[in-house]
């Protein structure tokens, strides 16, 4: 981060593609200028993307630091800023502030099994994490990915998911909410599928990301399977402005999602009043 945490650094759209079949999600690869300072981050951190004149919004980093220098973000079109982002074309510039927030505890995961549970378009930082773990494959034990969306066309990063399925050193369980033609994998909500997959809690950590309702119903499943509260992590979203713990709107109890989070263990959340 530069001295002034409010000033974005310019980045360029290297590539952009439509990510979901309903065209509400686009994935951007962003490149830094030649004179940019090194950008060091870990899976789970986020950035503020800035369209000057429109505003800023926070996005989890979907790329892994093991992938090189560009950054990947997947943007759901909901408001003013995300709409402006969707209009960006290759080669155009935007502003970026980050990396912000904490990250998944990848150091703690070393030598251990990791279970990633994701739902919908919140899979971005889980992609970052999975890519990071796979790039350092020998550092970790079993890796399990459970990921669901409403329809096949809403699953993010489908090509990569297919590659992971082929690898053999990562167990991938994909699911959709309702049966669809051409879909031969699991059907059902993520919590149910998690219950069926029954990942072992032994020497294992779990990371859950998804819409609040999915997190709400997945947590008890994991706890029932024997995961300790402090071994289950999630990443939270709140409306943010400054991203650096000053503007005062993203707090959950005394914790600021932007600086104390966005990654929290279930044990931490259980001690906070509002939760997810």
């Amino acid at each position: 981060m530069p001295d002034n945490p409010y000033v974005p650094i310019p980045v360029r759209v290297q590539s952009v593609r439509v990510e979901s079949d309903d065209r509400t999600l686009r994935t951007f690869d962003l490149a830094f200028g030649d004179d940019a300072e090194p950008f060091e981050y870990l899976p789970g951190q986020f950035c503020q993307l800035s369209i000057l004149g429109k505003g800023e919004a926070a996005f989890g980093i979907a790329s892994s630091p093991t992938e090189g220098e560009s950054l990947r973000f997947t943007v759901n079109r909901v408001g003013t800023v995300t709409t402006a982002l969707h209009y960006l074309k290759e080669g155009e510039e935007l502003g970026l502030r980050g990396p912000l927030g904490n990250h998944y505890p990848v150091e703690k995961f070393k030598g251990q099994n990791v279970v990633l549970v994701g739902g919908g378009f919140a899979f971005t930082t889980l992609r970052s994490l999975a890519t990071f773990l796979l790039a350092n494959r020998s550092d970790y034990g079993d890796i399990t990915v459970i990921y669901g969306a409403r329809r096949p066309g809403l699953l993010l990063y489908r090509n990569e998911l297919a590659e992971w399925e082929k690898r053999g050193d990562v167990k991938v369980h994909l699911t959709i909410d309702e049966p669809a033609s051409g879909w031969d994998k699991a059907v059902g909500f993520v919590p149910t599928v998690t219950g069926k997959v029954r990942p072992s809690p032994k020497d294992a950590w779990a990371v859950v990301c998804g819409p609040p309702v999915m997190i709400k119903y997945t947590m008890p499943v994991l706890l029932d399977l024997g995961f300790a509260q402090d071994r289950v992590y999630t990443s939270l979203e709140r409306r943010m402005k400054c991203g650096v713990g000053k503007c005062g709107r993203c707090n959950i109890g005394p914790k600021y999602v932007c600086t104390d989070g966005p990654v929290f263990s279930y044990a931490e959340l259980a001690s906070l009043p509002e939760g997810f």
Partner: protein
Amino acid sequence: MSSSLRIAKPDLDELVSALTSRYRLFGPVDVDSATMLREVKSADELALGAALDGPVKAAFFPQTETLLTYDGTRSEAPPGRDKPTAVIGVRPCDARSLLLLDKVFGTGKYRDPLWQRRHDDSLVIGLGCSAPLETCFCNSMGSGPFNAEGSDIMLTDVGDAFVAESCTDKGERFLKTAYKSQVQRPSQADLDKAGQARSKALAVLAPAADYSGVKTALAKLWESALWDEIALGCLSCGACAYLCPTCHCFDVQDETVPGTQQGRRVRIWDTCQASLFTKEASGHNPRPGSKERMRQRVMHKFSYFADNFGETACVGCGRCIRLCPADFDVRLVLERVMAEDRRPKTGDRATKNEERGTKKDVRHAG
């Protein structure tokens, strides 16, 4: 180390000149029906002794402040300052509020460059408060009408003069080096008058209330129906937050000059009482009603701030009571929070009461 000076009131302008030559000086100025903190150039602009309506934070954290300017996709931070900032004539409660704000903006992983630009090397000249109001409760918040905490120099009005005492090394240096007028020491009569002003102020002020149980009580009252009741007496405007010397939440907006790509990104005071404050682009709002927002405000000041910075984010200036359009009284909230904590638990009392008033109870809307 502390030195004291006598500044005859007609000589105040010399003090102000000494200040303005080194600082951007802010002080209380009467603007028709209100006393606001404004930049001042001479002593006759000052409304010393009046209860300041605008908060002192405005000198260091203005309501509307440029975060950066932009042209197309390029942006830059605003230029540096010419001079550090000084404030004069602020009450001890207000002086102390700056220490609390500095914890937010001046500490932590990210320090706020705009705050630093205005706050670093600043000089605070407090004015002992000889006329506390009915809404004042600084003494209940661990301070007092002549508390020097946060002030570098403290003035006391002794009739035809001010007694100026340095409270910090910075204040001492300023008095020694910058104020060059022929130095007068306060007479015994001055010191007696200053002492009388102090005791008079304490006599006017209501006895200090003990709010030490509030934080523990709040921890148990997250789900309490108390918040519904309290919220009924609030209009959900932002007067309290904007006028509060310790409220620091802000919004960020881009303003582009029409027809160009040039503009500025500004930060603007915001309030947790507004529904937009936490409303997400998707329409989801984690604090959907006035109950949740009221709870956030009270919790932030009396619980979360203490968790994060070891102090309560309230200096007892009473603006939020005095200037509230509904005469909402935060002291009553604190009392009710503690009372609720002491009550034996008998189920979800208030919700039942609301159903056609079967049970008998009264809750005033404040």
